[in-house]
């Protein structure tokens, strides 16, 4: 019995043990790792990555991929900066600026996601090519719109947001928690979630069973776009600028987090919890390697090896699953 369950458990177990073990080792090895300051640092680095990776998880569950998340982050950052910056001076009141800024960012993310989803679901274009070209397009657009300049002078309340606490907990944590809960809820408690798994597990079966496959695919990319927009809000607030190159280097971290968590690239298998620990592991890796004073390039090489290692493990486990 439960051959599948056993492996699934051991797999999500694996990434949890990996995180805990790694954390303990680094607490001993890396100077300044086990401090409140660094823990806050970890948290702030984790949150946007986690949120964007959750969107990517949705896409990958349908056996797709979204390479455009980085350009969505950049585009949203620019849009938000433009709406909120006192240099453009669109709004007199800080409150209105923040409200419209955030709404525009979310709208922008959803819009790019819609374009991706429409091209994949309705035009039958391969997800890889679609999101690759929207990546080139929108990062180009962000740079062109700003002529490669950063947008400064964002509202005080916005850039203070990461350090503002409610009941002793910083606001970004609430944001992250909200996204995790919504994502978990949609995936596990609604028809939409059921459809996402069905489309990824077997598109033909899903279609015949009455699943509206195109609708599901479009919504999944919209969700990924929204998540990337929320990530952009956190990044923009933290860096205190709207930047057209924001998030340029996180694409591989995002995909890595999802894959290491154990979500299958072929769809139908994956969990929000797995992605949480995948993102945590990627953040721990980055943070600790930085603290160890390792150079940027060593970090890259190590990261590459870790992604490959996780993928090999994934394949080996799947093979033993098939053998049973």
């Amino acid at each position: 019995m439960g051959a599948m369950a056993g492996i699934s458990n051991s797999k999500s177990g694996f990434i949890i043990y990996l995180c805990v073990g790694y954390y303990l080792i680094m607490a001993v090895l890396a100077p300044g790792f086990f401090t409140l300051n660094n823990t806050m640092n970890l948290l702030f680095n984790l949150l946007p990555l986690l949120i964007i990776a959750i969107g990517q998880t949705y896409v990958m569950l349908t056996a797709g991929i979204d390479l455009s998340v980085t350009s969505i982050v950049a585009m949203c950052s620019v849009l938000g900066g433009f709406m909120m910056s006192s240099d453009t001076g669109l709004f007199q009141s800080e409150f209105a600026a923040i409200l419209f800024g955030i709404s525009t960012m979310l709208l922008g993310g959803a819009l790019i996601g819609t374009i991706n989803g429409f091209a994949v679901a309705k035009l039958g274009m391969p997800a890889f090519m679609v999101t690759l070209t929207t990546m080139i397009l929108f990062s180009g657009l962000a740079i062109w719109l700003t002529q490669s300049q950063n947008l400064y002078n964002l509202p005080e309340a916005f850039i203070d947001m990461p350090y503002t606490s409610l009941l002793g907990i910083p606001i970004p944590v609430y944001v992250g928690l909200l996204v995790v809960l919504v994502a978990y809820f949609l995936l596990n408690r609604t028809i939409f979630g059921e459809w996402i798994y069905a489309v990824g597990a077997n598109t033909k079966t899903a279609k015949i069973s009455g699943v509206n496959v195109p609708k599901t695919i479009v919504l999944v990319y919209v969700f990924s776009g929204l998540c990337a927009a929320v990530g952009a809000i956190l990044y923009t607030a933290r860096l205190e600028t709207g930047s057209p190159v924001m998030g340029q280097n996180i694409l591989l971290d995002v995909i890595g987090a999802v894959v290491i968590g154990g979500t299958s690239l072929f769809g139908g298998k994956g969990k929000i919890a797995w992605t949480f620990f995948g993102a945590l592991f990627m953040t721990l890796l980055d943070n600790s390697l930085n603290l160890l004073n390792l150079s940027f390039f060593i970090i890259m090489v190590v990261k590459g090896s870790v992604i490959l290692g996780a993928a090999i493990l994934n394949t080996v486990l799947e093979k033993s699953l098939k053998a049973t």
Partner: protein
Amino acid sequence: MKWILNKNMQRLLDNSTMVLFALTVLFFSLLSPEFFSFNNFFNILVQGAALAILATGMTFVLLTAGIDLSVGSIMFLVGVISGKMVVSGLPLWFAGVIVLGIGLAFGFVNALFIFRLKVIPFIVTLATFYAGRGLGLLISDTRAINLPESLLKLGSGKIWGIPVPILLMLIVVFLAYFILTRTNFGKHVYAVGHDPEKSRKAGISVNRVLLKVYLICGFCAALGGLVAISQLGAISPTFGLQSEFMAIAAAILGGTSLFGGRGSVFPGTLIGVLLIQSIQNGLVMINADPYLHPLITGSIIFLIVMIDSLQNMRRKKAKKLGLN
């Protein structure tokens, strides 16, 4: 979608890349008289040589339904190592041999993980993408390397009145064309891309085909890297970034399918490269805002992939309706 079935439209769509290529040339010729000159065509060929070599290798991989994301990193690593070697006084030919060997080694590692450990090409080459760039940054110490005259002479040199980059490109394209159309191995590449299971039944060693294909791609990436640096005065830390995507885009524009089994190096990929290069050259000739370049390039690629997908859908529909 009745228009899709229109016969004339269909014929036009079947040659979409050619049509778009002609339109592009016409467009830039009208805007800039210098564009339509013998001299400038030579320029386009010289500038496109590195991409053409890179994309040729990529075409082999794509024909087997694989992907190689590591080529840009190989280019970068090759540039850094050969630059360092030549700067330190080693002979040019020696550096060349070494870095071509490095290209082959990358191809070998990629292939090994793909067919021995059955990890999907996307993840394997994503990891080697990381590793290659990390190593390159390590060796170059994240600084630009200024290249000596001897290397640049190679880039501007001529044999029988033909610039060396063009000559190398022609040799590579011709060899690839010959291999794909006139050898057993070439036919097996197409067979494996169409259906590995059927290929096995037909007695084809699928693993050997995959190995050779990734070796070719690694070699072409290294050679492309050499050709590219021979035209540059210096190697910056961003050299080769996103080259993998341009190579994939060129191949797909030339009619090669991401799903394998369909495509050609000549005329296909070569036309794709010329199209991309003409757009970029033309945008310079008409003094377009450099920030607009990715936008226009991205839009054209999106358009062509879309037309290709619509064609596919039309073919499938026609088949189901029995209009074959």
